[in-house]
């Protein structure tokens, strides 16, 4: 069943939002046309992608690169651009290049 949204009589005035931190519920990942893929074998866990990601979509566990948050990654490609580590054959794409590479969303 689709989510029931508030009618104009029910909606908060002027779009005020009363729940702090609720932007996490907004899955901006649906905007993405290209997504980053990551080669865990060659990653040095330097975390430069984590520093640069404007959407906090790089998930880190125990100080190590863990995953992309694809619910919020908009596919901007900054992580792939700043990734300093090279690979000869990427784990996912098989292509020579960086540890983080961009692929079309449907690939």
């Amino acid at each position: 069943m689709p989510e029931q949204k508030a009618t104009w009589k029910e909606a908060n005035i002027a779009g005020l939002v009363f729940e702090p931190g609720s932007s996490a519920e907004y899955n901006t990942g649906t905007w993405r046309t290209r997504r980053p893929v990551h080669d865990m074998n060659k990653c040095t866990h330097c975390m430069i992608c984590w520093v640069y990601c404007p959407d906090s979509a790089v998930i880190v566990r125990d100080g190590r690169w863990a995953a992309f948050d694809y619910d919020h990654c908009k596919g901007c490609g900054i992580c792939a651009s700043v990734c300093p580590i090279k690979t000869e054959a990427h784990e996912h794409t098989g292509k020579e290049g960086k540890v983080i590479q961009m692929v079309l969303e449907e690939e």
Partner: protein
Amino acid sequence: MVVSTRMALDGAHAAAHAMRQINPDVVAAYPITPQTAIVQTFSQYVADGEVDTEFIAVESEHAAMSACVGAASAGGRVMTATAANGLALMWEILYIAASSRLPIVMSVVNRALSAPLNIHCDHSDSMGARDAGWIQLYSETGQEAYDNLFQAVRISEHPDLLLPVMVMQDGFITGHGVGRVDVLDDSAVQDFIGTYKAKHSLLDVDHPTTFGSWDMYDYYFEHKRQQTDAMSKAMKVIVDVGKEFGETFGRSYGIFDSYAVDDADLAIIVLSSTAGTARTTVKKLRAEGVKIGLLKPRVFRPFPAQEFVDALKGVKAVAVLDRSVSFGAMYGAGPMFLEVSAALFAGGSQAKAVNYIYGLRGRDVIPEHIEQVASDLQEVADTGKVKSLVNYLGLRE
């Protein structure tokens, strides 16, 4: 008993007195002729410690309205003042203030928009802002500009509305023209306006709230509908507050200030100071047996459509005088004519309406002009035909 002091004030100083007595939490403003006297006088009150207001001297009108939005979001009672190009520079933030449902009150001293550069009165500034979501009250005299500001505070802060209000007066003609103003007792003003406690505030850390949120296709439409709903409720609030003001201070305010309209065949509709000239002329014509009346709207936003139809019942010919042009609109008409015409059509009125553009950039309108309008109207009423729909008063042809 109402305590008031009779003073000789120009409209701008009357507005500054009103702001002093309202004692807003925040005023952010930038000076521009002919509003300067308001901001300059009010900033002196701040410097002299006569008000508790935080006065923000900003770098532009865009910044002035932006600061007002911030201060009002923080729950403050907020005011500003501007004119002409200053109002134009606020445009973007006018919409944000209204759409954010912030009860900001602004004193506007009507002045022509450039170019060519002209500092004198017409209504192109506030008429250009007519769709921004603000309530608009027009004042004929300094007294009205003064009284309207107190009512504007009550109207804008009404919980059903939470809409910003701009109060207009005519630049120089009213703004710099000295007239009699009954200045109310400070404490009586405070009793009338009461204290303002915003329901939501940026500074309420116990109830963290996001203001100015991202609003996509799934909700923006609903929020716009809420705004039209608030506007539709505004007329009753404006009437109620005007009535209460009258009961408290002896000067009642409604949607119109009409003169001799009830049994009239002919009617003239005009805003602000020109209503004074028109009233004098209508009185003279009435004495000569012409069945003519004057309808001066005080409220332009929300537009009193049904109220116009009701007020003009029985009128055969009506002239709408516009002190601005809606360029490219039907026959180059003025904005008030366009809306009055639409209201009359939608309301099934049989009255013939004609438009007169007048007084652009401070061009004088004199009793002879009004008499010309009356004479034209008589011909329209007698023949049932409109020879010229959009006309110009005082233009060299």
